[in-house]
């Protein structure tokens, strides 16, 4: 029957607003409707899920919508759950539409109950029971109570493997995780609690154990899991059929191999006659797939297909190679480089855009980014381009870390009064990838300024250019600080370029002007030197070095090796002509992701050209951070002969011998291994003079010349390097082992901005 609706009245509303009813109810005032439309309208209103019941009635021409609101949940109370914590439970329930503020749907409540029981049973808690209750609160709002009785996990009392002849029950049971006896320590460390995942994991372990030892046809015919009537004990029976043990027959390749067969065969780790091993075959397939990836077939797929020969006990294996389409890289994107410029990253790429993709070059580029030392973390992701089946986009996601230090310092020492200093050392200055070192120190007795700049990519091929200027003036006239002083200024420029995958050559030329000032207590060697060689020395320096860097990371490497041989000479025409050879090597072995062993050494030899004495101010020094920790910086080695007024002082030597062994271990409780590295170290080192300096007539020199390894100083201690936001902080606590009187030791040493 048809009637025009003059007005609509809604009854039974408590919390839901009339507005939301009206805009969900398709019929509006003064519309003429018939019963069918009304029924449809009611159904639509019900579909909002807000109401338990919707009734339509007529009062004359007024349409009355009588609704019973579904209660909405005011609070959800959960008790008794310990295995599954509250958030996971609430999140699971919210997904099922059961959350505070939501409308209560009975169906979802039962669904949640079923899922919870399912969850507990899968953890072997078969006696778990969950009951829910609904408690009205006020104005059609309810509180949902969920009591959980988790019950205990059923203990496994039997794991029985039936049908194993080749390997005894004991060997097989040692392989699997689940045990059927309570653990040795009050059952605490036992693994006799049943869980379905662990069982399927164990079955897989059994299967691969057999498949890796020749049993191609090994099969687990059936597995029975039985529970005791009181639901506290579980009995597992695994029925196996070992089948025969097989050896590898022929190995051949099918499909489009791309690689030369000889090359492909060299990648297969097993050959005819070996016992069949599934893992060897999967490794070989993976090796082939990676080789194809390197050749540009990023979508290659390689499968090993064993065929059991009818007779005998051999299995012929065919590697089915589907190279797929040759893949191309369309675009390379970088994410996360908020300060480092795009080009600084892009120039490290060995994989080109618009070129054949090579999985090796893509991962190689990732390693090159890591070696810059600018990033804490580098991840790479290759995504196919939609619409172009053989093109991929490669995205490198980097997490930047401060790669340098900015520090300002105020120090005080009796001799030099207040020392104001500021230094900036940045390996990635303003994200340009250029290295900048700027430093200045001012105090009563000395002022020093230095500026260094290196652009590692002066040319795109990686030729670097760097220059350096320094000025240093000391004035110890009235202080009793030191027995002589040196002023110097100069500069240098150097170029470096890669000569192969790992090594670089550097050549540089520099000028340095040095003047020495002696006082009444200057040591005799220095007095004699200045008398004979004069107080000023201008030297034109040539430097050359060969570096081979295979470290796995720029900062705090844990694996790889680093070697550097450098030669510095003051060419004829300089006041003091000499040459200085220096070797520095490091070798690190990564024992496991957290532990590494580091061996390091530094050797130096210097001598004069011609017969003038070797300039003492170019001597090697030893001791301190980066050398022999536990001894004060630059104090190891031959001493000067004291003038009758002053005391002796370190002169250094023209031979340097240093070595260190360091065990890097994971600092406990610290998750982020990339910004904190701790180690235990053993350092050794000293400097020697091949022949002593002359002393003025009538004086006797106290120096002993000659390299005597017995004089090496040793120390043991703990080192820590921490990447602070301001820069790398290196800290060490060392205990000198064989310091003699006259050695200047220092147990605590730290420095900011320099990693050694």
């Amino acid at each position: 029957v048809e009637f025009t609706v003059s007005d609509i009245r809604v009854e039974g509303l408590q919390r839901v607003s009339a507005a939301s009813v009206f805009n969900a109810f398709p019929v509006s005032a003064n519309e003429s409707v018939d019963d069918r439309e009304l029924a449809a309208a009611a159904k639509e209103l019900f579909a909002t899920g807000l109401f338990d019941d919707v009734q339509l009635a007529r009062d004359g021409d007024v349409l009355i919508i009588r609704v019973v609101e579904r209660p909405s949940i005011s609070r959800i109370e959960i008790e008794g759950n310990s295995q599954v914590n509250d958030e996971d439970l609430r999140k699971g329930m919210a997904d099922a539409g059961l959350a505070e503020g939501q409308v209560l749907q009975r169906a979802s409540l039962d669904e949640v109950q079923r899922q919870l029981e399912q969850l507990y049973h899968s953890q072997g808690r078969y006696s778990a029971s969950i009951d829910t209750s609904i408690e009205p609160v006020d104005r059609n709002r309810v509180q949902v109570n969920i009591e959980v009785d988790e019950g205990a996990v059923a203990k496994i009392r039997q794991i029985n493997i039936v049908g194993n002849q080749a390997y005894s029950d004991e060997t097989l049971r040692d392989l699997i995780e689940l045990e059927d006896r309570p653990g040795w320590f009050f059952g605490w460390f036992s693994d006799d609690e049943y869980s379905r995942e662990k069982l399927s994991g164990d079955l897989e372990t059994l299967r691969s154990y057999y498949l890796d030892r020749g049993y191609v046809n090994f099969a687990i015919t059936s597995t029975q899991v039985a529970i005791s009537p009181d639901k506290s004990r579980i009995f597992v029976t695994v029925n196996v059929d070992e089948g025969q043990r097989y050896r590898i027959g022929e190995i051949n390749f099918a499909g489009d191999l791309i690689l030369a067969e000889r090359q492909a065969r060299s990648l297969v780790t097993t050959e005819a006659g070996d016992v069949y091993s599934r893992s060897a075959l999967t490794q070989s397939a993976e090796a082939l797939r990676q080789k194809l990836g390197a050749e540009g077939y990023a979508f290659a797929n390689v499968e090993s297909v064993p065929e059991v020969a009818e007779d005998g006990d051999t299995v012929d294996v065919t590697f089915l190679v589907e190279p797929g389409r040759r893949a191309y890289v369309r675009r390379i994107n970088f994410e996360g480089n908020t300060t480092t410029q795009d080009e600084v990253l892009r120039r490290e790429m060995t994989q080109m855009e618009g070129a054949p993709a090579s999985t090796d070059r893509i991962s190689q580029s990732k390693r090159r980014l890591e070696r810059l030392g600018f990033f804490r973390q580098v991840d790479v992701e290759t995504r196919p381009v939609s619409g172009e089946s053989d093109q991929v986009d490669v995205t490198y996601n980097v997490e930047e870390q401060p790669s340098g230090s900015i520090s300002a310092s105020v120090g005080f020492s009796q001799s030099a009064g207040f020392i104001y200093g500021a230094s900036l050392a940045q390996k990635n200055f303003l994200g340009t990838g250029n290295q900048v070192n700027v430093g200045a120190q001012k105090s009563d007795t000395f002022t020093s300024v230095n500026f260094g700049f290196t652009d590692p990519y002066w040319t795109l091929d990686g030729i670097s250019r760097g220059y350096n200027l320094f000025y240093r003036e000391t004035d110890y006239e009235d202080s009793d600080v030191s027995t002589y002083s040196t002023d110097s200024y100069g500069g240098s420029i150097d170029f470096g370029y890669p000569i192969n995958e790992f090594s670089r050559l550097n050549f540089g030329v520099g000028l340095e002007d040095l003047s020495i000032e002696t006082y009444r207590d200057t040591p005799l060697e220095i007095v004699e030197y200045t008398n004979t060689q004069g107080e000023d020395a201008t030297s034109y320096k040539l430097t050359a070095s060969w570096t081979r860097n295979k470290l796995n990371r720029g900062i705090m490497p844990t694996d790889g090796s680093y070697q550097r041989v450098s030669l510095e000479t003051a060419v004829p025409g300089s006041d003091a002509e000499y040459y200085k050879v220096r070797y520095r090597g490091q070798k690190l072995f990564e024992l496991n992701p957290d532990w590494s062993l580091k061996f390091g050494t530094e050797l130096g030899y210097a001598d004069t050209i011609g017969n003038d004495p070797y300039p003492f101010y170019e001597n090697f020094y030893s001791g301190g951070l980066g050398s022999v920790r536990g001894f004060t910086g630059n104090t190891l080695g031959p001493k000067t002969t004291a003038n009758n007024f002053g005391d002796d002082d370190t002169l250094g030597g023209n031979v340097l011998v240093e070595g260190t062994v360091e065990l890097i271990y994971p600092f406990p409780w610290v998750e982020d291994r990339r910004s904190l590295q701790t180690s235990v170290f053993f350092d050794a080192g000293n400097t020697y003079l091949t022949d002593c300096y002359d002393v003025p007539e009538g004086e006797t020199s106290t120096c002993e010349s000659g390299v005597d390894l017995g004089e090496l100083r040793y120390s043991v201690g703990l080192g820590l390097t921490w990447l602070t936001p301001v820069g790398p902080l290196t800290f060490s606590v060392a205990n000198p082992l064989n310091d003699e009187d006259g050695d200047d030791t220092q147990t605590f040493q730290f420095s900011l901005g320099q990693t050694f």
Partner: protein
Amino acid sequence: CASNEAAPDLQEQELYQKAQTSLDAGRYSTAVTQLEALDTRFPFGSYAQQAQLELIYAYYKVDNWEAARAAASRFIRLHPDHPQVDYAYYMRGLAAYQAGRFSLEGLELIDISKRDLGASRDAYVDFGELVRRYPDSPYAADARQRIVYLRNVLARSELQVADFYLRKGAYVAAIERGRWVIEHYPQSTATRDALAVMVEGYLGMDMRDRARDVLATLIENDPDNQRLEGRTFEPVYVDARPLRLDG
């Protein structure tokens, strides 16, 4: 004043009033808590939709860009044809825009087009959607201006990469970067430089026929581009003869 933890039994209307006063007084973090409480406890109340809009604004004012964008996306999903949904689109774009800016950007000290532009790209897409769906929304005008700024930043970053690849000698890469600008940012002024890059890329590969086609378009669109002397194009990085378009 109102404790941070909104009292649970406040009526919906009263809670909404309290949120308004916090907003007006600029106490945005208190407003956020109150609006959040309103949203969970009265999901279907008459103030619900208005509260959700104001919640977006409050998140924005406390510089919580992710929360603002999430709240905006949720509003768009729940009330797609709400009269004020264009505000949600606009705020989603604005939050991404702010997330992409750098303090030093104004000083030109750091050229952000050389760095990661993820957030700016999101803003560009969101503003684009707003302008497309609601061309005459009150926020469309401001959005259009920001789109122009973002478009140039994104285009410039593409050209910087193209420039690198020209110097490196990876000419296919350089040409495709240029094409990307033309395809994705057709209205930006950078398209002209993109054409120049493509010309030089083709010259690098000695594909002078293609170079000539692109040069023709460049001359037609931007005759006094600084890379042109009359009708001749002078390659900068590539050692190839200059390309003259006669006739």
